[in-house]
């Protein structure tokens, strides 16, 4: 519904999707003080227009990898590049939804959404239209003039998602974006995100620790090891492009989820062993 509308109206401003190439990327936190190796020799190619999930136990460095792709933290070793060249800084071609919303608390929901649109150079009337469309899409109609501190965590996260989707980035980075949502809203948002992705051909990198969410959303899933983060398995999800509620009962979906669950569990067990 809103998603098809979206694709037709936004084509002229759309950033072109791009693949992402990650070559031998390692990352150490606190390198000067001994350091903690968070990522170790990551090699990964994410295709143009692919929906890719990074799946792994907490602390495996999957968010770090996402921030490196976003350009928020400098690449220490290895190279990350998109069609625009090597990543050196954040940019509007790679928009991100953070785990903790990162809304501007001094702006209303609508002004938060308008900020990105203004930066992206949309004309005033178009900004208004797009802001309203995405606010409606995340079911925040009626809360346009509310400040983030007046909203629940789930509502804040939906506002943050609207803000990022509205600028129609070529590459969409998402750091456990649905973690704060209740189960029903999460399902609706997952379906909306799939629909938006299918219609607008973005490259999506989606970080999650929820196996079912990863299988439902992704074309391919990278399973990361416990710290230091390495890519342990890359798994193709050969399920129909159109995925709705019914896919949850699909035998292949269930089988694949179980298979991936076992792989992730091995890493999670290794992580707890490592902690002792």
């Amino acid at each position: 519904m809103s998603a098809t509308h979206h694709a037709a109206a936004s084509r002229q401003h759309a950033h072109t999707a791009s693949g992402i190439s990650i070559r031998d990327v390692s990352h150490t936190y606190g390198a000067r003080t001994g350091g903690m190796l968070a990522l170790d020799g990551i090699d990964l190619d994410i295709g143009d227009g692919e929906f890719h999930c990074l799946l792994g136990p907490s602390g495996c460095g999957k968010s770090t990898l996402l921030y490196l792709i976003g350009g928020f933290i400098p690449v220490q070793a290895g190279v990350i590049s998109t069609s625009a060249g090597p990543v050196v800084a954040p940019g509007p071609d790679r928009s991100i939804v953070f785990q903790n919303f990162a809304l501007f608390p001094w702006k209303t929901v609508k002004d938060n959404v308008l900020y990105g649109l203004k930066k992206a150079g949309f004309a005033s009337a178009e900004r208004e239209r797009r802001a309203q469309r995405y606010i409606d899409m995340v079911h925040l109609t009626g809360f346009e003039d509310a400040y983030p501190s007046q909203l629940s965590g789930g509502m804040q996260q939906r506002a943050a998602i609207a803000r990022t989707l509205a600028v129609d980035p070529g590459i969409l980075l998402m750091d456990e974006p649905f973690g704060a949502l209740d189960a029903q809203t999460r399902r609706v948002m997952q379906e909306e995100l799939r629909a938006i992705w299918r219609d607008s051909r973005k490259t999506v990198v989606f970080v999650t620790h929820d196996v079912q969410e990863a299988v439902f959303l992704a074309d391919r899933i990278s399973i990361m090891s416990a710290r230091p983060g390495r890519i342990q398995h890359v798994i193709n999800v050969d399920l129909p492009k159109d995925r709705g509620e019914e896919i949850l009962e699909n035998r292949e979906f269930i089988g694949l989820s179980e298979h991936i669950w076992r792989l992730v569990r091995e890493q999670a067990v290794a992580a707890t062993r490592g902690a002792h």
Partner: protein
Amino acid sequence: MMNMAGAQPLARAPKSSVQKSPVPPAPRALSPRMVDIGVQVAVVAALAGLWEFGARFGALNPFLLPPLSVVLGRIWEDLIAGTVLVDLGLTLYRALAGFAIGAVIGIPLGILMARSALVRWLFDPLVSIGFPMPKIAFLPIFILWFDIYDTSKIIMVAFSCFFPIVAATYAGCSSLDKWPIWSARSFGAKERDLLWEVYLPMAMPQIITGLQVALPVGMITTIVTEMLMGGRGVGGAMIMAGRFADSVGVFAGIVQIIILGFVVVKSLEIVRRRILVWHPESRR
């Protein structure tokens, strides 16, 4: 409920029956806020009454503490003569002008100290030394450097307002949450846009707190410089009254300062609430 409690103090009624006993909420004739204001006004009125009657009925020497009504009568006379408004206006002008200069220099410098190591290296020692120092000690120097009229007074006020403002702004801008900054950058904001679009609004609660500390400091400094340097203004008028042993005149000045200070500080509170509508504190 009361019967049960009286008859069997040890027996506990089943919880549900106790809690469900219908206690209709009392009709709210007065909101808690109205009660608050009422009590505060009553306390001030009681003190004023104590002052008035203590002085009038000989408990206190009326020269040392003239009755409030006499003091208010003097203010009324001077108001009609026009001198009160001139003195109040001058004092307010000096206080606000100095405060504004302190803010215009202090806020940007505080932000720059937080964002740039070079600026921090240059100014951190100065601010650290100046913050706890009694700023009024510089008055003789300011009189030598800039005349004895408005300029030196306003500079003295600006100097004393500057330190709390720069310190609060620096502290506020050094502890900014990185997530809104990262989001702004990912939408394509440049470093110079971030200052206005992110750092300043995000640090606004601490900056306004610094202003709220500085404003009374500015008022105090204004009165003290006026007292030390003479001339028009509430502080100057009080010193003149004191020299002529006019205790009524001195108390008239005190009452004027109390009212002026109250109005100015309350106004800034209202400004704070209007600027920080987005902040959870505004919805308490």
